[in-house]
């Protein structure tokens, strides 16, 4: 096994099992770090807790819901608004956060009364909202508050409301991934099958593991609607609580982030016979294949092909412009979980960069299997890294850019390495054909920002050149390009709008008659003809 031991982690020898370098001829039977284990004491992990994984990642993107944390206010504050999962109802779920504000006295005397009072107050404050999710936290789990019982009491007193209880306190798993698991299973156990949805198409899917980061879900849903597909529910970005109660009536579960939501797909397959189709909304080829597969499943591949042709013709020249300027740039792909495999191959193939390292904060070994498979030789793969390891890896690999979260990202910036926000994006959405170009543009802007030349100078000791003027990104990126590329009129940088999502909300879609309606119409025609 090609393990790698960081100098900074020699005092924590167990860490060696969590780091590998993919060598020549290595495959998954010889090169895979350990994963999804409790963080080793002494290693200052970058992970979140199981409560955060349940509430912040999966629960809260649901848009028409009061999301309330039963616990200290800090738990709620720290999971509020730090991820840009927007919604088409004026971002209700981002604007407001709710907590029962548990204090020491409640730990001593119990907080159930406090919870009930808070639930009622919240519904009263927002009378238009009739749905609620409640999240258990460490403090209230440890004192044994029965959140389910209180929720039942309130639902009995207020029959117009519906409440979902997520019992995933912070300690309920090694990382946020434990919370993803718990809320998946809790949702299917408590809510799926409790409401019959209205079916409006012959082709019906659940879109699962999609969180509408800066509008990703709305971009993908646009494609589905153009294909005449009904998106019965989205689990959970821009998703509606009641739509998600009707998940059992879909014909196909289309799964994006398997890390956070494969559990509910697998259970829907077992319990309701709905198959799971893993797709990938990032990258022209992966996205094209994904639309094609959904089209094939429903016998409407021609509709998928029409979209692929139109979108590729529109956006390929712009992607190519960035690819020409990003060739060989070294990337540390250090996201939380699934993006290490969503992006690893696609950014190398379609943007020309080289992934020199992948890491995952909360991924499982399955995520590393996918990520390592999609990387080339020499890639450094790290599970549950700590900050010192991150710094050492940056020093060792000297990447041109790093894709990661805000905390390690800011740390990387201090070392002179530009970073892009892999979780919440910089200028997303990044899904879809246009989104993929927006991602390429953000990478380009990060790498070639002139600020790095200025920021790398230390005014306390470096000589400040006064004989050079300010340079632009273009001057830096095109310096060594052949003229036929630099001056090409066939390629161009991004020409889309600042906001590529809002216009989708008012878009009209073609009507695709349902088979039953067509049969009825034909029968009517025949009957009329016979009568005549």
């Amino acid at each position, binding site marked *: 096994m090609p393990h790698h031991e960081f100098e900074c982690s020699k005092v924590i020898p167990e860490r060696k099992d969590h780091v590998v370098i993919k060598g020549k001829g290595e495959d*998954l039977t010889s090169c895979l770090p350990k994963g999804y284990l409790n963080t080793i004491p002494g290693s200052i992990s970058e992970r979140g807790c199981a409560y955060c994984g349940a509430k912040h990642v999966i629960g809260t993107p649901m848009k028409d819901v009061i999301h309330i944390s039963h616990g200290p206010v800090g738990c709620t504050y720290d999971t509020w608004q730090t991820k840009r999962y927007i919604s088409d109802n004026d971002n209700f779920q981002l604007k407001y956060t709710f907590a029962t504000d548990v204090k020491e006295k409640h730990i001593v005397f119990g907080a159930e009364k406090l919870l009930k009072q808070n639930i009622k107050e919240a519904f009263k404050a927002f009378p238009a909202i009739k749905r609620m999710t409640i999240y258990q936290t460490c403090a209230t789990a440890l004192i044994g508050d029965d959140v389910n019982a209180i929720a039942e009491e309130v639902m009995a007193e207020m029959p117009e409301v519906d409440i979902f209880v997520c019992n995933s306190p912070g300690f309920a798993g090694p990382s946020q991934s434990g919370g993803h698991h718990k809320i998946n299973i809790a949702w299917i156990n408590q809510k*799926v099958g*409790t409401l019959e949805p209205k079916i409006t198409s012959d082709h019906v899917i659940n879109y699962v593991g999609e969180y509408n980061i800066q509008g990703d879900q709305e971009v993908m849903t646009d494609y589905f609607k153009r294909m005449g597909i009904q998106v019965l529910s989205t689990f959970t970005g821009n998703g509606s609580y009641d739509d998600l109660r009707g998940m059992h009536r879909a014909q196909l579960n289309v799964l994006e982030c398997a890390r956070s939501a494969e559990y509910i797909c697998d259970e829907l397959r077992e319990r*309701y016979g709905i198959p799971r189709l893993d797709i990938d909304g990032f990258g022209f080829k992966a996205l094209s294949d994904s639309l094609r597969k959904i089209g094939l499943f429903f016998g409407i591949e021609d509709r998928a092909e029409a979209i692929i042709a139109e979108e590729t013709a529109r956006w390929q020249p712009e992607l190519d412009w960035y690819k020409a300027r990003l060739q060989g740039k070294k990337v540390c792909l250090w996201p939380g979980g699934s993006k290490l495999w969503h992006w690893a191959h696609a950014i190398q193939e379609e943007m020309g960069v080289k992934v020199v390292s992948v890491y995952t904060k909360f991924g499982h*070994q399955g995520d590393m299997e996918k990520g390592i498979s999609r990387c080339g030789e020499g890639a450094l793969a790290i599970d549950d890294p700590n900050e010192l390891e991150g710094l050492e890896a940056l020093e060792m690999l000297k990447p041109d850019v790093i894709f990661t979260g805000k905390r390690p990202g800011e740390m990387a910036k201090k070392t002179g390495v530009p970073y892009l926000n892999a979780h919440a994006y910089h200028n997303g959405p990044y899904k879809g054909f246009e989104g993929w170009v927006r991602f390429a543009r953000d990478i380009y802007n990060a790498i070639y920002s002139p600020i790095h030349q200025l920021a790398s100078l230390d005014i306390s000791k470096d000589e400040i050149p006064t004989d050079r003027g300010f340079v632009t990104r273009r001057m830096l990126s095109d310096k060594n390009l052949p003229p036929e590329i630099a001056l090409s009129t066939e390629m161009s940088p991004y020409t889309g709008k600042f906001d590529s999502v809002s216009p989708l909300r008012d878009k009209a879609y073609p009507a695709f008659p349902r088979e039953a309606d067509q049969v009825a119409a034909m029968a009517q025609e025949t009957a009329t003809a016979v009568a005549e």
Partner: protein
Amino acid sequence: MSVATAKKPSVSQRKYVPIYQSNPLADYDPVIRERVGQMENYIMKHCLWQFNSRGWDRRKQNAGILGKTTQLLCGETVDTSTPQEKCYWVDAVCLDRAYRASFPWVSTLSKDEIKETMKALHARLDWLTIDGSLNLELTVQNY
């Protein structure tokens, strides 16, 4: 109260049953090994279906999709009678097209040669993703 009928999961069917003790590709001749290597690389770089989280699922996925891909490559009829079979078929169609487009040697093979190559690929993928895998979660019985 649930209004839909849900089947109860059967955990007893989720037991991991090993098949290969070592890399099955080692027994094949170099030409097949080379071809399988190319096909395997395509799957690993572009597909996700081989990485379901549990071993018994991976076994079904590999058999379902590679089985149907073999039938498509051989021009045989493929069963799409259930939603699950159709879902396997969808991935198989994409793989069939990609193999034909990426590997010109595919069209030079007889049906028997295709079947032998795909059998080796199936064995290799089972080894990589299940029996030889270092992933400790494959034997977990719950999702």
